[in-house]
């Protein structure tokens, strides 16, 4: 039987990814991903499908209860302060990703200008320099979130060779990981994404 922290990581993974394949399960819990996936399916918390396993309503309930326990032990006061610090690199990252996708003036970046692309990728590294220590401080409050440090670093390491690792939502790209972290922080602080969107932070 899995311990509850592994179970939580996997269920929340299924929630954040929408669909969980053995490969994406491994992102959250390592090599045992596939076995654990089958176990949760057997318990009726996940339901297998063509594009991957999704949360059942029992799975959603179980996830809510585990997140509730996590929230009780987390230092919400400290986390609120850390979330305020998160705002600035969050804003910068979104600008950088947009600059990667669109040239000034709004036309699609066709990546024919190597100097431009290099400059933008350099800005991602600058964001990471600010973000990495912050994510570590967040993980000190909520141990489950420690995987984000590793995942962000892994995305950054692959970026030069494979540009999909900047923002493609179908791989564990920097923006994708960042966005899942953002979603986790909103959940931990009991914040609403729509309100955050209205405030320009989502």
């Amino acid at each position: 039987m899995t311990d509850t922290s592994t179970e939580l990581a996997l269920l929340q993974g299924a929630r954040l990814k929408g669909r969980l394949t053995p490969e994406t399960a491994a992102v959250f819990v390592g090599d045992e991903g596939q076995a654990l996936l089958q176990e949760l399916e057997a318990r009726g918390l996940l339901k297998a499908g063509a594009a991957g396993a999704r949360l059942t309503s029992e799975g959603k309930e179980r996830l809510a209860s585990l997140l509730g326990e996590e929230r009780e032990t987390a230092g919400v006061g400290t986390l609120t302060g850390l979330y305020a610090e998160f705002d600035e690199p969050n804003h910068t990252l979104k600008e950088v990703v947009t600059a990667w996708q669109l040239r000034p003036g709004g036309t699609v970046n066709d990546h024919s200008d190597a100097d431009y692309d290099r400059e933008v990728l350099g800005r991602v590294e600058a964001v990471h320099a600010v973000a990495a220590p912050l994510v570590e401080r967040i993980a000190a409050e909520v141990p489950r979130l420690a995987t984000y440090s590793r995942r962000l670093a892994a995305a950054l390491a692959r970026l030069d060779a494979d540009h999909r690792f900047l923002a493609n939502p179908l791989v564990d790209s920097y923006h994708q990981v960042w966005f899942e972290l953002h979603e986790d922080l909103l959940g931990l602080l009991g914040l609403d994404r729509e309100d955050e969107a209205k405030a320009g932070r989502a």
Partner: protein
Amino acid sequence: MKPILLDGSVELDRDLVGGKAWAVNHLRRLGLPVPPAFALGTDVCRTTLQDGALSVEATKALDVGVRHLQSVLGRSFGGAESPLFVSVRSGAARSMPGMMDTVLNVGATATTLAALAEEHGAEVADDVGVRFLHLFEKVVGTVPPEDPFEQLLAAAEAVFRSWMSPRATAYRRHHGLPDGGGTAVTVQAMVFGNFDQWSGTGVLFTRNPLSGARAPLGEWLPLAQGEDVVSGRVTPLPLDALARSMPEIHAELLEAAQRLEADARDVQDVEFTVESGRLWLLQTRSAKRSAEAAVRIAVSMQREGILTTSEAVARLTPGDVAAMLRPRVDPAAAAVATVVAKGEPACPGVGVGLVVGSANEAEDHADAGEDVVLATPTTDPDDVHGMVVARAIVTELGGSTSHAAVVSRELDRPCVVGCGAGFLTDLVGREVTVDGGAGLVYEGRLAVVPPASGDDPDLSLLTRWLGVESPAMLPAALGYPAD
């Protein structure tokens, strides 16, 4: 002081007569039929504001000017037969659209309206009377006097005063324009498109503003005044209808349109009125156009020798060419379609499908082989599986760097963001067409035009001009010209 006659006999000083009067005179210099007009210069505005009222000289100039209009048209101001009506318009050296006042149908009295009813029917007379009363009271602030010349004096003074109105002053402050210039007053004979079966009003584009084709396109409303176009009271006919009913007028109009385009060296959007079988041009300006039309027209005008190569290139934006290289909504279909939501363009392209409100529904419908458009307040990470299967994505909240925007661009799904809270709920279950590049959502399934092919002659020529290897490189080349 003499009125400045706008008869095209001499070139006028724009600072003195204002943009409106300058344009009227300029069209007359081109030999084009514009309703006769005269002006009092911006210098008269300054003295009127100083003295607090029109001077005796200015009053005399108005009198002389009106006599001139009467003799040109064979009508009489305030008369019981063939009455003359005039518009009193503002016009500064620098355009301040909508900031100052205009009074129309000045000269409407019991006598002249009775004459109008006698000659052209009670409906026309009532229309003129009501419109005059409404605008005069609004601009001058009093009930109009019965004497037509008193009406003209009050209207001219009010238009001069509108130079110092709070909104005009605020506009100048905002645009860094000085307060000292003043507005001119242009007094122009009114022409009527609702007199008889040989009357009407319309607009003409000297080239097709949607496709860029070198063929005029226009609308014609028989028996109507210009304001009817805006109010939607009358359904316009194509310009061919004018060609059938009044072929000489149609030919004269096309000839005038060509002269206007050649003079401006750009496609023109021309407003005209036909009054009892006589053509009058009311206004001309550079036409708004689709991205494709912008490209086609600029290249064509270079080929025709109207523009130099660098002038043609300067008319284009990277977005114009980029839009041609994508599938796009058929401009003719878009022109008559209903826009059901509007937001910020996040990812260009066109997507058509049934609107669903959640990623799971998107997946279910897509599994069943349906085209879906995902419409949600915002997108969450777990919406990505729904975004992947959607033909387009629309959100209520967030800007061009929001999650939905970033992810849609990665997935190359047309996307419009920030349509407004609550604006998409009603769309669920309906079929729509999303134009991501324009930030528009249309009702229904609109026809989509395929991207311009690689050997499109206009784009090929552009690649040669800009020295790039393929049309795909044009947007970048236009955005970042070599120094």
